[in-house]
């Protein structure tokens, strides 16, 4: 065998066995959804539309979608038509930067902006049933679709702020989000398991609340837990953090309305 043919053979053998011993570089696997930390019973309840209590809000959102609002008397459906097609995939891309104002908006903000800008209606307050309902209804149209937010371009400074927030210690207990949700995810905090801090199930029905609640409400609970300032609903700090969390959830399927403890 000539040296050339021997070399070619070696290259061929190497190319055959290399994939077996070193996996080709791929995108990192998505982080596990918090649903995996629920009991089997709760997972089953979440998956069953007739048993998931969050579906009450989704149903209310479906009703509001058709309901005339504000000075224009326009409903969401007047412009957007059938939500099951027009809203499919929308929630996977939020929070997102509004091209007109340059502001970072979560889904709640986008719905309220639609109300003030197009329907000439008052914005709904955070955590009100109508806002939770519409948000959950819109997010529900992306059920099973992977999160996929934009973090470059106009979103870049917001993403950087959210990342910094996630990693800085705060509160009297001097803890960062990362110390629990990166370093200790999956471990026990008394009877609870620390999640990876993904927002893919929100608005979610939390047993602790006995209600549906927004991701912002969940973030305020976390701040309370480390004895830190609870920022206002829709504050720039939490919005930026929401964007960072959404990027952490890249590729994770939307589960709204999820059940959480």
């Amino acid at each position: 065998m000539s040296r050339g043919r021997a070399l070619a053979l070696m290259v061929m053998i190497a190319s055959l066995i290399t994939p077996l011993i070193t996996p080709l570089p791929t995108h990192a696997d998505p982080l596990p959804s918090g649903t995996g930390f629920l009991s089997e019973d709760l997972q089953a309840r979440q998956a069953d539309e007739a048993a998931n209590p969050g579906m009450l809000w989704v149903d209310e959102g479906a009703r509001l979608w058709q309901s005339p609002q504000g000075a224009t008397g326009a409903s969401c459906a007047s412009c957007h038509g059938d939500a099951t097609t027009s809203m499919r995939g929308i929630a996977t891309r939020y929070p997102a930067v509004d091209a007109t104002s340059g502001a970072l908006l979560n889904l709640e903000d986008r719905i309220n902006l639609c109300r003030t800008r197009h329907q000439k209606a008052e914005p709904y307050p955070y955590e009100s049933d109508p806002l939770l309902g519409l948000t959950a209804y819109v997010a529900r149209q992306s059920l099973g679709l992977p999160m996929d937010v934009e973090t470059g371009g106009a979103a870049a400074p917001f993403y950087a702020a959210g990342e910094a927030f996630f990693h800085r210690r705060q509160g009297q207990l001097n803890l960062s989000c990362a110390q629990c949700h990166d370093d200790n995810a999956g471990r026990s905090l008394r009877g609870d398991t620390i999640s990876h801090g993904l927002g893919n199930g929100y608005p979610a029905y939390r047993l602790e609340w006995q209600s549906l609640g927004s991701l912002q409400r969940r973030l305020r609970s976390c701040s309370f837990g480390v004895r830190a300032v609870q920022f206002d609903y829709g504050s720039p700090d939490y919005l930026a953090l929401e964007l960072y969390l959404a990027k952490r959830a890249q590729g994770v399927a939307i589960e709204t309305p999820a059940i959480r403890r």
Partner: protein
Amino acid sequence: MRLGGKLLSGAFWLLAALGSQNASGAELLPYTVRNDSVPAPLGGLSGDPRRGRDIVLDRRRGNCLICHSAPVAGEPFQGELGPPLAGVGSRLDAGQIRLRLIDQSRISPRTIMPPYYRIEGLRDVDPAYRDRPALDAQEIEDMVAYLRTLTD
């Protein structure tokens, strides 16, 4: 100038002697760190292990079981983030336990353990907890006394 400088350094000395102080007037008792230990009890206080046990279990005070396990009956849910507290009284002396409660980050800067007797260098503290430590000096000493009893 020279007099002013002396006054200034004197003022700093006085502040240091008083311990940490802040605008609201809350203050911490001074303590001295030797290696990984604060050998002397805070304020010369003596701790009560029975009270210390209550503080360790109290979810609004020590809440230690959120992160640690401890040999305590009737507490089925215990944390697993920090080392088990069983045997801590054999592994560490009182001064070493004291510093770990006061501010574990003086030993390991990246620790997840909160500082229980510190008010400086904290960010975005809830107004309800601002300018006071998570536990007071007596509570720290009570916990030291209790943790010293966990020798097995």
